[in-house]
């Protein structure tokens, strides 16, 4: 009788792979009919995202100012920061956007990406200003999402700022003016 050897064993833990399926046939010929094995693979990453040249916009939000860029050469005025003009390539200057604008278009999101699902329903709008050439994406609050109507397009809205800045574009949001 062969001596039974005690091989080293890795200590067991109670975490591990979640198995959804493990059938196995008696006959190996049946392996091709076997159901697939699905395993859970968690994937979490922290990115150090730099706002780079757009950083003053976020500093502005923290100080109650909605900033954007304007081209000193061709005069094109952006509703969302862009450090170099799309039309002439010139480096832009900073300016302060008006507090009040109008809804150019909108939607009510009843679903969303996983990150924003807990916030549904939320309202997205593109804000327009008569004297600005492009738009700005923001959330609209203080209206009932159930009242969504195409009549909302053109509504006058006013920027408000979070007191405790999170340095996200949602530090500014809009309410009916």
């Amino acid at each position, binding site marked *: 009788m062969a001596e039974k050897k005690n091989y080293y064993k890795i200590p067991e833990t109670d975490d591990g792979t979640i198995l959804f399926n493990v059938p196995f046939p008696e006959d190996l010929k049946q392996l091709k009919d076997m*159901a*697939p094995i*699905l395993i859970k*693979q968690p*994937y979490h990453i922290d990115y150090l*995202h730099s*706002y780079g040249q*757009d950083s003053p916009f976020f500093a502005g939000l923290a100080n109650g100012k909605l900033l954007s860029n304007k081209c000193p050469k061709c005069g094109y005025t*952006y*509703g*969302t*920061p*862009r450090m170099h003009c*799309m039309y002439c390539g010139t480096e832009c200057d900073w300016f302060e956007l008006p507090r009040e604008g109008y809804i*150019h*278009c*909108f*939607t*009510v*999101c*009843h*679903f*969303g*990406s*996983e*990150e*924003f*699902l807990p*916030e549904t329903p*939320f309202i*997205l*709008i*593109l804000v327009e200003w008569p004297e600005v*050439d*492009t*738009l*700005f*994406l*923001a*959330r609209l609050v203080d209206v009932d*999402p159930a009242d*969504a109507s*195409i009549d*909302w*397009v*053109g509504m006058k809205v006013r920027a408000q700022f979070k007191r405790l800045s999170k340095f*996200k*574009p*949602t530090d500014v949001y809009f309410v009916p003016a």
Partner: protein
Amino acid sequence: MPDVYVVSGGVSKFAKARPDRTFQPMVKEAYDYLLDDIGLDFTQAVELVDGTTSSYFSDHFGRQLMGGAMATDYLGMCPKHNKRIEGGGATGGLNFQAGWEGVASGRFDIVLTYGWETMSHVNTWKGNEFIALASDVSFDYPVGGFYSGYYAMMVTRHMKEFGTTVEQLALVSVKNHNNAFHNPYAQKRKRITIEDVRNSTMVAWPLTLLDICVMSDGAAAVLFANEEGINKLEKATGRSMKPTKVIGVGGGMDAMRMADRPHGDVILLPHEKAEDYKDLKYPGVHSFRSGRNASKEAYKMAGITDPINELDFVELHDAYTSSEIQTYEDMGLCKYGEGGGFVERGAPFMPGVDYGYDLPEQGKIPVNPSGGLIACGHPVGATGLMQAVFGHWQCQGTIADHFGDPTLQIKDAKRGAIHSHAGTGTYVTVSILEKGF
């Protein structure tokens, strides 16, 4: 520049999930169909194909970098040239044009393209998060990154600007689902009504679940050749090829952030006049300037000046019912602002199919006879190639053979357009196919 032909194509069944296969054998399913359709052996193809291009949209969905290399070795195409093509929703359409370029440039006689996506490996809302990362992560994604929301904003502007109605949007869904009823490759094959669409779950006002395409697992493959390549294939197989000639290609781009889109003058197609649009600020967010640019370029190359009368069908990128209506206009099938009425009158419906509605212009220019993305599914890297395969079969007149049902064959189809589209109209491609035998 040599003439470039599509010689064969194949599509895997699009499904919500394909846990039975990793992506490589799924690509091989489409590829095997492509080979079988022209009677070419695997080993003959290894010998004859000069190079390959592969496409998939998202590294996140697969959690696999260099999937292109893995699909290429699975098909036995090493050690020849391969490159991966990526451009959001238009990934497949861009890959189609990359395959075309490989032959048109004179570099290769025969090029194989393949594309796929496996979107079932994450839940729907994580999938939406991955897709939304294809928007500016400083300014757009953090505000509520959700592509259905972005497109819904575009359509509320279209509705405001032009009076487009939600019932008109719903009709697109009715058409595409009912068409797909006759397409065995489609993921969603059902007969629905306008009420079904409007009563479906609201996702992003005014778009409901049935206004929006679904995520899919699937693959597609297309084989390109010049005349020399066709000679080689005919010699190897002992068969005559029934190719489809690619007579036009076009592309376009727009700013990733919708907020950055300008408000200027309409880019005109040959059959339009500036006074048609004297009060319209363009493209804003109601229209896709990239789609117009791609159409203009493709039509010019193909010599098309009156698209609705010179095309027999269009397979276009209907990720949303709204974007199908917007794309009728970009492609000049009707004027800007008239897309709602265009579908309401039945112009883009298949002739001879009963949709349950009175459609006075039914069959004028069938759009998405296959059922489009809304019903076939949208495995991103495969989608634009799927359109090319269905377009190829339409021009060949072989839809009945491939679908096992003649309903969706457009009678005497000679020429059609395929249109692929990414992220709120960033990348767009249009390619024109013509019967080549």
